[in-house]
């Protein structure tokens, strides 16, 4: 019965979106996305109940929502969020992408570093996080510092490679023009090359933003104090509190999307002139 209801919900949601898609108002894409999401949640709820899936395998969304609504859980989740996102991911993101930016500018001036550093960079970027994490815990302790260190390692090279590529964006004609204006290295860098590199830099930042959260969460599997999103996930799975695990996942998804979205908004404001940002 519930399975039939799930099918009906699917068809209704699909029909509604189909009808909406023909309209051209501004709010249609947003509403369509909301309807799609709500349909998925409803089907999930109905199927889990209809097929009597044990809650230790997949809890229904209503159970997860009930968990999220519980004030005690909210307190825990807030502590986890601060520990993992603010302390671990965000500080690692700032240090890692900041350092990568500086190194990229330095590398750009030195052909030796370009040939030597970038291949090594690729190599380090390919190291698996589960290999790095225990080492970082050994070096920097159990606190957020070791998580930030892993995030630094993870975001450094995507950011470096993107920035280096971005700094190559200007062509000889543009640089010659700067020279005829009697602009020095720094003026050329600040007024021509960095703005031209901005789309690449933001690309690097966007990649880094998602890597940062993943890195900070996974790193907590390898030793942590008794708080943090990664700690909560690995502990609550062992306790079979899958509703709690999903609640943490929901928080992580929202935090990650907001982080990415924030950078995308910044990008739009900073690179409004770039073809990729026009016609929006």
């Amino acid at each position, binding site marked *: 019965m519930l399975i039939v209801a799930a099918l009906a919900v699917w068809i209704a949601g699909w029909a509604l979106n189909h009808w909406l898609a023909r309209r051209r108002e501004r709010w249609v894409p947003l509403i369509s996305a909301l309807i799609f999401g709500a349909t998925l949640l409803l089907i999930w709820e109905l199927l889990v109940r209809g097929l009597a899936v044990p809650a230790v395998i997949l809890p229904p969304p209503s159970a997860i929502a009930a968990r999220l609504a519980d004030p005690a859980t909210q307190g825990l989740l807030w502590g986890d969020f601060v520990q993992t996102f603010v302390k671990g991911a965000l500080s690692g993101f700032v240090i890692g992408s900041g350092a990568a930016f500086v190194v990229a500018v330095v590398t750009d001036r030195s052909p030796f570093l370009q040939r030597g550093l970038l291949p090594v960079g690729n190599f380090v970027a390919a190291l698996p996080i589960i290999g790095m994490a225990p080492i970082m*815990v050994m070096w920097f302790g159990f606190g957020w510092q070791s998580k930030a260190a892993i995030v630094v390692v993870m975001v450094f090279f995507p950011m470096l490679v993107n920035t280096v590529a971005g700094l190559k964006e200007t062509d000889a004609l543009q640089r010659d023009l700067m020279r005829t204006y009697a602009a020095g290295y720094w003026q050329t860098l600040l007024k021509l090359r960095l703005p031209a590199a901005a789309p690449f830099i933001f690309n690097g930042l966007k990649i880094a933003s998602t890597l940062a959260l993943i890195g900070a969460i996974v790193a907590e599997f390898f030793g942590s*104090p008794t708080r943090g999103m990664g700690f909560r996930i690995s502990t609550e799975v062992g306790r079979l509190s899958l509703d709690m695990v999903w609640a943490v996942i929901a928080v992580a998804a929202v935090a990650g999307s907001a982080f990415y979205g924030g950078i995308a908004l910044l990008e739009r404001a900073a690179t409004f002139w770039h073809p990729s940002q026009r016609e929006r």
Partner: protein
Amino acid sequence: MKRVLTGIMALGLSAGAAEAADELTLQLKWVTQAQFAGYYVALEKGFYEDADLDVEIKPGGPDIAPPQVIAGGGADVIIEWMPAALAAREKGLPLVNIAQPFKRSGMMLTCLKETGIESPEDFKGKTLGVWFFGNEFPFLSWMSQLGIPTEGGDEGVEVLKQGFNVDPLIQKQADCVSTMTYNEYWQVIDAGFTPDDLVVFNYTDQGVATLEDGIYTTEENVEDPEMADKLARFVAASMQGWEYARENPDEAADIVLEYDATGAQTEEHQRRMMREINKLTEGSDGTLDVSAAETTVDSLLSGGEAPVITKRPEGAWTDKITSMIE
């Protein structure tokens, strides 16, 4: 028990190899090591085959929760610690203990002597490494019995989520770490510490030991007569495996090594582990000591603010399977 076993064996032989044996999947709690020697010995020595069983042994690992595997239909029986099994039971997964090959607990808290820790009262203000993923329950109930908060501070203890190694102790990031008599304790020794450098708190001596490595299945399986018969044969053959492992520790360790697909275990470590494990299974014929189970329950219920389980479980263990053997 012996007589019944020979009976089963005779049955198995007369049934002949042509007939398909009953399939049974066992999910271990941890990676292939001497901790599970009884099952590997029973497989290698053909005790399962003699009982007309085709047993598949699935090794576990740091990211595998056996109760979840059995809930998802990935196993028929699992090896689990009683606290985790009872917690799962409260979460709505009706696990039942059908046999208990481990009579004693191997869990300890191992501290460095130089930290000045001599008794549990000295834990205050110290940093302790604890395993989570369902293995934290005995520690948490111990601390709540001692009345020590686990939130840190001068009057409480700072708890670290310890990885499955003893690095935090060796690097002095923690004052104490969780160890098992048969495994991590020896990793500390191998790292260059002598027993004199260490202060060891055995959970058994502290009166907070909980039953480890029991054989669990679901209520549904126990009630199904055909499955119950299979389980009884499984438990009997497994106990035969344990008996063999106690009599031939080196050979048992070698059998475990053979089945270790990862190749991560060493002969020295496994032979030593086998002897330590044998101390824990000594004297067990598989039947559960109900008073020990009650002690486990009491210790878990007395969890203070955050008890591991909130109500006394009913039907969490049964002698139905073991009594079918005798």
